[in-house]
């Protein structure tokens, strides 16, 4: 599943990011590396998501959210 279909309040693990190199490196610099846990804080109708990663909050647009593959942490 991708970040786009994530549920508010749930915690997920990042599996992979499928974006161009520059965008991917930016996300990694912000702490979104493979295996990181993220918590979904909010999302809107357009598919933009607010999440908590490594103690900081990020807002991501639908294009980026859709490119982040992840799995639910049970």
């Amino acid at each position, binding site marked *: 599943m991708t970040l786009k279909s994530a549920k508010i309040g749930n915690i997920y693990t990042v599996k992979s990011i499928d974006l161009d190199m*520059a*965008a*991917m*490196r*930016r*996300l*990694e*610099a*912000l*702490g979104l*590396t*493979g*295996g*990181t846990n993220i918590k979904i*804080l*909010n*999302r*809107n*109708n*357009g*598919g*933009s998501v*607010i999440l908590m*990663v*490594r*103690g*900081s*909050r*990020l*807002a*991501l*647009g*639908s*294009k*980026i959210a*859709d490119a982040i593959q992840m799995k639910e942490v049970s």
Partner: protein
Amino acid sequence: MKNEIQVGFVGNPNCGKTTLFNAYTGANLKVANWPGVTVEKKEGAFKYHDNRFKLVDLPGIYSLTSYTMEERLSREYILTSNVDVIVNVVDASSLERNLYLTLQLIELGKPVIMALNMMDIVEERGMEIDLHRLPEMLGIPVIPVSARKRTGLDILMHTVAHHKDKCIDHILEHHHANIADKFKGHKHEHHKDYPIVYSDEIEDKIDDLSELLINAYHEIYNVRWHAIKLLEMDKEILAKYPLYIHNIVQSSYEGEIINQKYDFIEEVIEEVLVNKSSKVALTDKADRILTHRFFGLPIFLLIMGFVFFFTFTIGDFIKSGLVVFLGAFSEFVLYLLQSVHAGTFITSLIVDGIIAGVGGILTFLPNIFILFLALAYLEDSGYMARVAYIMDNIMGKLGLSGRAFIPMLLGFGCTVPAIMASRSLENMKDRRRTILITPFMSCSARLPIYILFSQMFFGHMAMLVAYSMYLIGIIVAITVAFVMKDRSGKDHGNALLIELPEYKTPNQYTILIYVWEKVKDYLTKAGTTIFAASVIIWFILNFGPSGMVTDMSLSYGAIIGKALSPALAPAGLGMWQIVLALISGIAAKEVVVSSFSVLFQIGNITSPAGMTSLTQVLGQYGFGALNAYALMVFSLLYIPCAATIGVIQREMRSFKWTVITIAFQLGVAMLMATLVYQIGSLFIK
């Protein structure tokens, strides 16, 4: 001058870096642009004990790659300038993410000191940071500071003075506490030399590359860092030190290196962050309402409504006091000039030209002050980033990211920094479109025009009329963005990427400095551009082909205005005086107002008496409320001021695009003002 120490301030955006910087330097800043580009660095100097400190505030960055301009420039600065010490400002409440930059800074090899900011937020959350263990693991001094409460400042500079020649001076202690198994049999025992040691595979390659580098480039400073960058296949370093490395590096190890840095950061966090309580932060509670999917937008609109309400009502209240003062001042100068028997030429130049022009503009200072104060509050509180998220949906429909809304919002203050803020958009196409529409957001320089003309012609509806200008600006901007939307479908979806900082009470000191800078700009503009424009306007109105004229309609100004006035006649603006005022407004939009006072020889144009007489004079030419509205619409949309044209040219980096932008905006202004006037004429009269 032996003891000048140059200190570079580096940190993530929103870590309180600028607040800390301001705490040292106050408003004594020199804002310097990087040569060739418009990324700003700020410089300030002060003395402490026997040392002179020169502080340099670098742009907020998350890492030191070569992917963005800010990061490249910061890296370049640290590597090549003679900076003595790097102060890495770290937001303690988001230590984990901030440490990533810290590790990169340490690897760069210059002396680094960590200024651990926002410890109060950490304590509020019931957490603690082990200030003994943290420097042990990183090998650099860690100084807790509070930029807002201004504590720890002396200690930090003391450390800077003592630390300027040392890189890693702490004894590094690395226990591999919980993950001993993972690194068992680590053959590279570098733990006493570097805080971060990579996996054997990477360390082997670093060793190989280091050897190559040293053999080829003896003078190289900090070989390890360069080797790591080669391993990451960093474009800039590859170009700077061309080497045959394909037998060592087949593909970039960048992803692997980032991951291992974060692995190490996790170890650090594990050891230094005590009592990781998960108390719901106040920020999350506030965000539940402020970024709510339904309420977020109405709340934002309400906030902006308040901002403009205060700008107009309170601003006007203070302004009326200034107007009285200006009237008295003007009469006093007139009396003074008459008592020394100054000639009519000089008297007219000073009273009708300079005081009328510049003085009139100065009375708008309270409105401008309040508007910038409000914008500073929105920015410093952390709300601005939320606006990008709230607007993301709407902006997405226009084919832009929510981030493009921040330049637009800043455009309400001043178009110049707003256009510079568009730099945060990565895509050049998006950036061009944002630059194209940002000038339509009504900047504070246009405020005097609205205030004057809406009060003159619309009485108690004045505020509503002025509001409508902001709305028209937004609607035009949105329409243009929508029409120009990239419909090729390739760039489907939007790429918003923004950090939402912790909410905080805005720091009074930071805000004061920010607003003071704006007020200073405004005063400088009044003293230079507006002063010069007023003098020029006075000259071309008082001189004609036949020399000094008493009848303005024979002046050079009238000749120019009359030649161009037919073009604006369909918009109800076909008077030569108005054409001239609008042309002069290209120098700065406020000049439109000052030109009116020079053109119609009205001394105190913003006083009730001044407005009444201007209304009467204009009335004689058949200029009524509808004409005034068309004038405001035209002023809102036409060619931006000279400073804006300059910044558009620098940011677009294309002469063609700059010309297109100007011509386009002039066209839109003509079209809209004509529509307003022609359609309005059907109903009124």
